[in-house]
């Protein structure tokens, strides 16, 4: 029995080649052990592909406790197993993750226990913009974990900033846009600009330093940091950690204004408020002023109208009391009340006068503002449009009425022409039998002596038939 299991291919290959089996007598036949073949394949692969570059998408990325990284590289139709030892992994600037498109450098080898060939990577790099994107994602994840983006940490903008800080380049469009908007909408603004570079090596450090400085200037209550639009590379400084940190530690609210609506930068995420463009940032600061001045005006009006109502109530009461003076015996008390009321009325009137002066001034300002909006002309335009519509409507109705009336007339005419009365009007007559149930159409229907009735256009005649012809 034992020699049945003593299979030839488990023996030494040298022995096998020297002793060919009788059924397959080919002299060139050589049988390897699996290991032998695998080793050969491995040697061959390692020799032929000792340094290759291969690109593909990472998937099944797993970091083992040993510190080695295992993954699969794939494209639309093939897979390649890969691994990267801890020693090489140390030098990577990004963290490999599923779905990343990478270029791998390494040598091909075979993992003998599984008979799988694989690439042993010495270096991996993300392809295209992937590198920046990756750095972005990774910084974002880290800062998020630290809580730098927490909504709870976002501070409201000051109602009325005494000074507005701006950190940006003096050469870009951003500063001009900001100043233009501020000049147009917030005449008496005080701006402190900290000029910095906003792109290129070292820009992030400059921006961060500028931010740390400007927040210390007395009375700067809010800071705009940003630049105009550009490519992802141009905006990169706003994705770097020093800028994020400087924004995060700012004691005053920071508005980020990186001119690129679609890409959110790290600075945007850390800032208290994100404006899509520098102009928008300036508008955010200015809008607050207008909002508040309107609010004060409304509060003031309510205050004054409360006071006025109070005065009116008071004088009514004084009136009533004086009317009752003769009846009631409280002359002294009433006199005192009257005096008190008079005093208070005077005090109120004085206050009201002051208030009216202030209010009138506000009203004038508001009116000027309204004028600026040219509301009047707009209203007039709308009214003219309305009048036009009205006239058109009326014309339409009148025209339709005319048409309806004309059609009615035509119908009436046709009805008339069908009416027997119209025929009678032309001199014809209708003869009826005696009981007026039938019109007589045939002379044979009557006999001499019958009474018949003749209907004329006007009136009718009863007649006797004297003869039938």
């Amino acid at each position, binding site marked *: 029995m034992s020699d049945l299991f003593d299979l030839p291919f488990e023996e030494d290959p040298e022995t096998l080649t020297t002793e060919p089996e009788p059924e397959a007598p080919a002299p060139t036949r050589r049988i390897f052990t699996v290991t032998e073949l695998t080793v050969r394949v491995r040697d061959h692969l390692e020799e032929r592909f000792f340094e290759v570059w291969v690109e593909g998408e990472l998937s099944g990325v797993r970091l083992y406790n040993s510190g080695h990284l295992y993954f699969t590289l794939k494209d639309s139709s093939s897979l390649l197993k890969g691994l990267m030892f801890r020693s090489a992994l140390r030098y990577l600037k990004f963290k490999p993750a599923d779905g990343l498109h990478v270029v791998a450098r390494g040598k091909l080898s075979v993992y003998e226990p599984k008979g799988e060939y694989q690439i042993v990577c010495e270096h991996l790099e993300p392809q295209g913009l992937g590198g920046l994107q990756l750095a972005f994602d990774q910084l974002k994840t880290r800062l998020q974990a630290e809580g730098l983006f927490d909504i709870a940490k976002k501070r409201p903008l*000051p*109602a*009325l900033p*005494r000074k507005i800080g701006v950190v940006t380049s*003096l050469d870009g469009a951003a*500063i*001009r846009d900001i*100043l*233009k908007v501020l*000049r147009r909408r917030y*005449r*008496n*603004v*005080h*701006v*402190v*600009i*900290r*000029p910095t570079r906003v792109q290129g090596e070292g820009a992030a450090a400059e921006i961060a*330093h*500028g931010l740390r*400085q*400007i927040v*210390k*200037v007395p009375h700067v209550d809010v800071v705009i940091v940003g630049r105009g639009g550009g490519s992802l590379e141009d905006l990169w400084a706003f994705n770097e950690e020093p800028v994020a940190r400087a924004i995060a530690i700012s004691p005053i609210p920071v508005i980020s204004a990186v001119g690129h609506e679609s890409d959110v930068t790290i600075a945007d995420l850390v800032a208290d408020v994100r404006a899509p463009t520098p102009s928008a940032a300036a508008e955010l600061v200015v809008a607050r*002023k207008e909002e*508040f*001045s309107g*609010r*004060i005006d409304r*509060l*003031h009006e*309510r*205050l004054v109208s*409360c*006071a006025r109502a*109070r005065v009116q109530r*008071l004088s009514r009461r004084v009136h009533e009391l004086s009317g009752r003076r003769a009846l009631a015996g409280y002359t002294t008390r009433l006199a005192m009340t009257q005096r008190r009321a008079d005093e*208070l009325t005077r*005090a*109120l009137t004085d*206050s009201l006068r*002051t*208030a009216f002066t*202030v209010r009138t001034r*506000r009203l004038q300002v508001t009116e000027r503002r309204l004028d600026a909006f040219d509301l009047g002309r707009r209203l007039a335009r709308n009214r003219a449009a309305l009048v036009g519509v009205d006239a058109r409507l009326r014309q339409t109705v009148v025209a339709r009425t005319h048409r309806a009336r004309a059609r009615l007339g035509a119908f009436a005419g046709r009805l008339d022409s069908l009416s027997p009365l119209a025929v009678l009007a032309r001199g014809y007559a209708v003869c009826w039998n005696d009981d007026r149930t039938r019109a007589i159409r045939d002379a044979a229907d009557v006999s001499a002596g019958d009474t018949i009735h003749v209907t004329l256009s006007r009136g009718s005649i009863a007649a006797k038939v004297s003869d039938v012809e």
Partner: protein
Amino acid sequence: MSSPSDNTIRDFEAAIAELESIVKKLEDGDLSLEQSLALYERGVTLSKFCHARLEDAERRIELLSERGELRPAPAGLSGDDPNR
């Protein structure tokens, strides 16, 4: 008596908040005449203060240097340049 530098008013935000609560109290009524009057007067003071604060800053543009020094911005930048 009720100048914008009234030291009973902390700042603009506080003034607005106080003004709002005063108006609310007055509108709710139920106050003695003296109380109403006092509130009214305080309200007028606050409202004046707020308006003054809105208008009192002067238009100014300054540059902050790397060494932390402030100097006026060139006229061309500030947009007051008539050629712009």
